């Protein structure tokens, strides 16, 4: 599978030649084959999004459905809520540290693994196994590591590094960053895999040529390697960014939004508003805001990928 080089993601190029010509009696078969999936997605994705939009425009804020139309009232209320304002700030703050952490660690690890040392496959596997785990497992373990009384603070104390001790998840000032540590631990391997695929797609001759021209390894990286990795970096930012906006499991398990609203996010608040407070219309409004934030990131990306294909 040649997903490795310039655009590691998404869409494999189709050959330019027109597709198989079908005899007339076979024209319908392809449509029948994909019809079940198309119908399911039409209903469960687009139909349900429509239903959520509708719910966000009515008065339904108790266990009993009430479809009295109230226009954008729920959205107005939502943006006035302290909690939701905190959510928006939190989600952007979290996304920034999550992206920075994943890219720095992922790029660093990829460059290290690309040095052709013996045993790199072992390290590569070690850096990527967290991707096979669930956020619930990650959250359970990191909740223990970041427990101020029993976890990493004990190690810091033993090393006489007491100034580095922290309340971690229990301190409103550090909780969001602590959550970020666990998230970066889990997802940086994905970034590393993308960068590594990109690095291994760069022909060695290119770098050799630059070396012959007298470039040192530092210049080589910043002038040749890094620019070639730019499309991959963009893909990584978009994919990880949208994962970050949607993050739910980890917050649910590690802090449930606390302390206070220090780690609350739209994804979690939507769930709490809907399924614990029965504020269905508010929950729906949060969900649509979240969907729009994700769409701003993803729709241009999908269009970009597909255009790349048709231009071939």
């Amino acid at each position, binding site marked *: 599978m040649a997903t490795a080089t310039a655009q590691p993601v998404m869409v494999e190029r189709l050959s330019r030649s027109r597709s198989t010509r079908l005899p007339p009696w076979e024209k319908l078969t392809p449509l029948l084959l994909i019809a079940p999936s198309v119908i399911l997605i039409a209903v469960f994705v687009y139909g*349900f999004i429509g239903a959520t939009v509708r719910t966000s425009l009515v008065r339904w804020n108790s266990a009993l459905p009430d479809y009295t139309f109230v226009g954008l009232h729920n959205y107005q209320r939502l943006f006035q809520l302290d909690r939701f304002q905190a959510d928006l700030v939190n989600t952007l703050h979290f996304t920034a540290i999550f992206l920075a952490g994943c890219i720095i660690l992922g790029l660093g690890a990829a460059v290290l693994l690309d040095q052709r040392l013996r045993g790199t496959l072992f390290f590569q596997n070690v850096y990527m196994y967290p991707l096979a785990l*669930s956020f619930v497992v990650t959250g359970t373990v990191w909740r223990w590591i970041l427990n101020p009384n029993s976890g990493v603070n004990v190690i810091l104390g033993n090393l006489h590094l007491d100034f580095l001790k922290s309340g971690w998840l229990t301190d409103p000032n550090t909780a969001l960053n602590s959550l970020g540590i666990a998230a970066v631990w889990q997802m940086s391997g994905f970034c590393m895999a993308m960068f590594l695929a990109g690095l291994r797609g760069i022909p060695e001759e290119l770098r050799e040529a630059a070396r012959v021209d007298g470039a040192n390894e530092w210049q080589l990286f910043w002038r040749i390697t890094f620019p070639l990795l730019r499309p991959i970096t963009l893909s990584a930012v978009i994919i990880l960014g949208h994962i970050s906006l*949607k993050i739910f499991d980890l917050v649910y398990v590690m802090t449930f939004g606390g302390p206070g609203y220090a780690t609350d996010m739209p994804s979690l608040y939507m769930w709490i508003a809907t399924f614990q407070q029965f504020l269905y219309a508010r929950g729906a409004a949060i969900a649509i805001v979240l969907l729009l934030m994700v769409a701003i990131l993803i729709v241009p990306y999908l269009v970009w990928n597909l255009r790349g294909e048709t231009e071939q």
Partner: protein
Amino acid sequence: MSILVPAAPRARSRFTPMRAGLYLLLLVLAVFYLTPVFAIIVTSLKGIAELARSTVWELPKAADLSSYSTAFTALAPSFFNSVFLVVPATILSATLGSLNGYVLSKLRFRGANVVFTLLLFGMFIPYQSILIPLVQFLETINLYGGIPGLILVHVVYGIPICTLIFRNYFATVPRELLEAARIDGASVIGIYRHIMLPISIPGFVVVMIWQFTSIWNEFLFAVTIAQTPTQQPITVALQNLAGSLAPEQNIQMAGALMAALPTLLIYILLGRYFVRGLLAGSLKG
């Protein structure tokens, strides 16, 4: 797949300070990634008495397996719930994805690209945006509350990623193979059964590993839909273990290992295919 097989080491393996420095950095990173494994081991193998604060990071004096038996008793039913969820959901979504991938790569019709893009968008949406009508719908058809409803949900929302992986896979199949079969009089379905299906086994492996891992690890749908206590998948049960049943850290860690074991084993045994799914779909969660 270039990423999976590292380039051959540059022949010489002489010691140089540069090389030692690189290994040191590799090791530091490895310590960061392996710390949670160490935490699971040192905590889950201790009895309550040994969980004292000063010794939390020390190896247990003797392996105490009692936390494993407690965790096993508490989590075994939900472990099997997850198995009964994951197996059918994986097979069904892979099957649908394979059919779609075949059509969208080899039997393209007018508007195929638009259909494909609209399908793909389904894997990026935050599922919160469909959750309220989904719950209402599952209640209407009496599938709210347990594993059958979750199977339906994972099959449907698995369609985009499975379609994507299979479409990419089939795109590498030479068109001549199909033309030849056409000339021999094979039908659209005949070509699928006798050519595409047999050669797409590696594609199935990638898709099924990906789906198995994603569904096993999934939490949002599980915690929303599996309301019946006896029908919870393992992710929900593990979370509840911390809340009420057994707050002791050693039991939680043993439970975490139990919940992680199937996907971890797949990663260890079939990691190459897992990474392909990861890069093809390039997302998780």
